């Protein structure tokens, strides 16, 4: 599988994400935000965590309007896979590729700690390495992870089984404990927790590794 990791000014999880994807077997290219085209033959575009453009205006808002993101939107419209983690999730909501928005945490604090997540019954290649209902531990590190959708959209996401992860103990005020959602075609995943930071024993756990391995196994079948 060929993956591209987008790098914005202020991205800080880009290299960790590259390593996690490579260890799962992907061929990874780093792509600068000013580039206008993704490399040829990219299967997955990964948008990393960090503080793109200093979170100016709103988290992810400036990044979502950068030149490479026009290519990202076209890639998704062609049926390509896209993964946004933390700031990457914020960017994907700002592009409109995923529903909802991420607000300031309910307690106004930056929260950096491992949290328990439940893997929801959500049909997507990203969850192939997990069992529905499985509980995993993955760190969060964000100030603006308080997921919001209105009631109608929430009912739609629930009805369509598009909630990928929920928090066992909601740390930030997210609607319906939502930690991650997928697009209607299930090829775009956005999540606030950082699976790339729980991907090898030295990280203190490997619960995040299963996401990359599972995705890779599904892409190999495709």
């Amino acid at each position, binding site marked *: 599988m060929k993956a591209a990791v987008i790098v914005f000014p202020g991205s800080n999880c880009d290299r960790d994400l590259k390593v996690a994807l490579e260890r799962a077997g992907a061929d990874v290219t780093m792509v600068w935000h000013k580039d206008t085209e993704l490399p040829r033959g990219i299967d997955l575009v990964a948008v990393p965590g960090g503080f793109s453009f200093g979170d100016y*205006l*709103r988290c992810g*808002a400036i990044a979502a*309007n950068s030149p490479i993101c026009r290519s990202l939107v076209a890639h998704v419209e062609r049926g390509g896979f896209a993964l946004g983690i933390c700031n990457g999730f914020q960017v994907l*909501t*700002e592009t409109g590729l995923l*529903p*909802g*928005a991420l*607000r*300031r*945490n*309910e*307690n*106004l604090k930056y929260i950096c700690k491992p949290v328990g997540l439940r893997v929801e019954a959500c049909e997507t290649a990203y969850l192939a390495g997990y069992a529905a209902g499985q509980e995993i531990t993955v760190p969060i590190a964000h100030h603006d992870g*308080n997921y*919001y*959708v*209105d009631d109608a959209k929430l009912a739609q996401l629930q009805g369509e089984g598009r909630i990928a992860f929920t928090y066992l103990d909601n740390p930030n*005020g997210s609607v319906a404990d939502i930690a991650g959602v997928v697009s209607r075609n299930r090829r775009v995943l956005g999540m606030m927790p950082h699976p790339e930071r729980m991907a090898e024993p030295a990280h203190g756990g490997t619960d995040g590794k299963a996401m990359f391995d599972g995705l890779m196994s599904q892409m190999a079948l495709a």
Partner: protein
Amino acid sequence: MKARVHVMLKNGVLDPQGEAVKHALGALGFGGVEGVRQGKVIELDLAEGTDEATVTQMCEKLLANTVIESYTIEMG
């Protein structure tokens, strides 16, 4: 010419910063503050003749996230 854009969280969207400001005002002894909503003001210096419809597009595309925010525009 100038335009001033006010961006606020929509009614019904919890504003934790507004809530914190409300509590702080209460702690300072100001009674009767029943609600605080915090937003932002964006001032634009525009070329003469720029119309409000263009500023509306700016709001829709970048200045506000209409999933959670509403905006008003003051021209001139």
